[in-house]
């Protein structure tokens, strides 16, 4: 984690809290000989990431079950520990002690490799997320590209799992994972291109810095608060749902049709690894959405800057994760052809038009006074009108299903 950015004067009061993680790490490194410091520094970063996101994963599963329960008029897990707080650990012990079954016909090497590759790839995304003003694990010039390169490869691991299991359901899941990737990858990549256009960089830290500052002290300059940014954010989140294989796009898993898809032949800890990867992927994508559209670690109002930046990042991350769970509790799963149609006929055109909107926004940055209103009106129209037209096209002829014989 490089302490490259100087603290601004406004955050002088919270300097200690802000610096605390870095100070702790440097204090620890002070006890080591110079030659070991670079590697230990890296290891500390990795350990911190694993600890924080491992715990987040554990409690995210609990929170998801609790929230789903509440939404379905039941309490959720509440037996293990106070309010079920020990449930994740009970689950971990269960997963660890279960027998690891490998089907006789399975491709043993790929069957073994798939969960490992999946977790490794889904963890890689965390390396470039700016968690706080001073907390950036790795500064890369093309960080955004790196992030999505790592993300795209995860689907390969799902394919490996599905194919290696030698199970018809798993194979179908593998095919679906590939088809799904082909559908949503394009809108996912197109949705954040405007951000890169306007920020003029692929570096995550610089994208966050570009969203700093407030109008009148309380209106943050986050990308989501512009017309093109809002459209991009929505498209990004829809595609992110598909990328992380979450409901309503959990077609590869599809418990009701494919047993558990690529997870059918997995048990014990390998199964847990798949879940871990799913939640890591969800966290990483949410973190990326926060970075690209929600201002990263920036506080929403100037007077709230005394709260350390990583707390803001965490709060936004949790809000997005709640959104993931909320959507899972609400929407039914799409069919494969519906997903493809949604991605290619709706999201891709919208994302392409959004590029034009962003270009307009970029070119009219100098407008002020009443022209500012015109700028907003045109940009909003550029977002809303295509949405309405394409939406009408997409839903044409769709009505609640009528049944001729059943009542």
């Amino acid at each position, binding site marked *: 984690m490089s302490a490259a950015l100087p603290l601004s004067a406004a955050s002088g009061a919270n300097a200690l809290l802000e610096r605390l993680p870095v100070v702790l790490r440097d204090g620890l490194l002070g006890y080591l000989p110079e030659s070991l410091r670079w590697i230990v520094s890296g290891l500390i970063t990795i350990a911190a990431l694993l600890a924080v996101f491992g715990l987040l994963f554990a409690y995210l599963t609990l929170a998801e079950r609790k929230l789903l329960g509440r939404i379905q008029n039941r309490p959720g897990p509440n037996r293990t520990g106070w309010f079920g707080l020990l449930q994740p650990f009970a689950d971990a012990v269960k997963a660890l002690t279960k027998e690891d079954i490998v089907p006789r016909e399975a491709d043993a090497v*790929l069957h073994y490799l798939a969960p490992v590759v999946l977790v490794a790839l889904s963890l890689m995304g965390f390396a470039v997320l700016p968690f706080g003003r001073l907390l950036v694990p790795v500064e*890369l*010039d*093309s960080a955004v*590209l*790196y992030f*999505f*390169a*790592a*993300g*795209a*490869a995860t*689907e*390969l691991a799902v*394919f*490996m799992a599905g*194919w290696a299991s030698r199970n018809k359901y798993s*194979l179908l899941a*593998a*095919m679906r994972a*590939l*088809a799904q*990737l*082909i559908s949503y*990858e394009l809108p996912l990549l197109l949705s954040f291109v405007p951000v890169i256009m306007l920020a*003029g*960089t*692929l570096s995550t830290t610089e994208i966050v810095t570009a969203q700093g500052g407030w109008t009148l002290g309380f209106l943050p300059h986050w990308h989501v608060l512009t017309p093109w940014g809002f459209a991009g954010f929505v498209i990004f989140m829809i595609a992110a749902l598909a990328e992380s294989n979450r409901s309503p796009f959990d077609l590869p898993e599809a418990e009701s049709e494919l047993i558990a898809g690529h997870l059918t032949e997995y048990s014990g800890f390998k199964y847990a690894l798949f879940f871990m990867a799913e939640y890591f992927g969800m966290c990483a994508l949410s973190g990326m959405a926060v970075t690209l559209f929600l201002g990263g670690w920036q506080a929403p109002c100037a007077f709230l800057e005394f709260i350390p930046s990583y707390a803001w990042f965490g709060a936004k991350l949790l809000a997005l994760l709640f959104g993931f769970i909320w959507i899972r509790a609400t929407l039914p799963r*799409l*069919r494969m*052809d*519906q997903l493809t*149609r*949604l991605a290619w006929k709706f999201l891709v055109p919208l994302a392409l038009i959004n590029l034009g909107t962003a270009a307009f926004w970029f070119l009219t940055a100098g407008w002020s006074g009443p022209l500012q209103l015109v700028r907003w009106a045109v940009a909003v129209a550029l977002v809303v009108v295509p949405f309405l037209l394409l939406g009408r096209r*997409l*839903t*044409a*002829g*769709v009505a609640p*299903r009528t049944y001729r014989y059943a009542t």
Partner: protein
Amino acid sequence: MLFPFLIIACLTLASAAVAMMLRNLIHSALLLVLSWAGIAAFYLWAGAEFIAFAQILVYVGAISMVVLFAVLLTRPSRDVDLPLPAPTVLRIASGLMAAAMVASVLLTAVLATRITGGRSHAPNLTVKDLGALLAGPHAASLLVVGVILTVALLGAIIIAAPAPAERPEDQP
């Protein structure tokens, strides 16, 4: 500095070689993905971050999917390896010819490159510089590529578009 290069080179070449020899197409495809990743690692080693990640995004992320999809859709059975046809003169000749063509292309490319002696440092190119280069001096080629891709996409849409009558029974 040389040691990582050797590891990357060996890994890339070995996975490519094994991919050629295996009779299981899926294994071959996955090993091919590994060798693509090796090439990306090589770019990374050479300091070309952007190209490396683009390589992973495009090859490991997308093209591998298309390859695997094609294999899954065309293979009759994944358990039975198709029998090797007996080598005839025609087969050997065409194989040799294909190999010679690829080799000649590669050799021309290698020989045409001026390898300057001594240690040259990698150009310190940022993504922004790359973008400026693409949109500036190389704008024409970018446009041509864009037009070709657009035409391909349009063609795909026309091929994929269903006749109006045979729409699926219920739309999303």
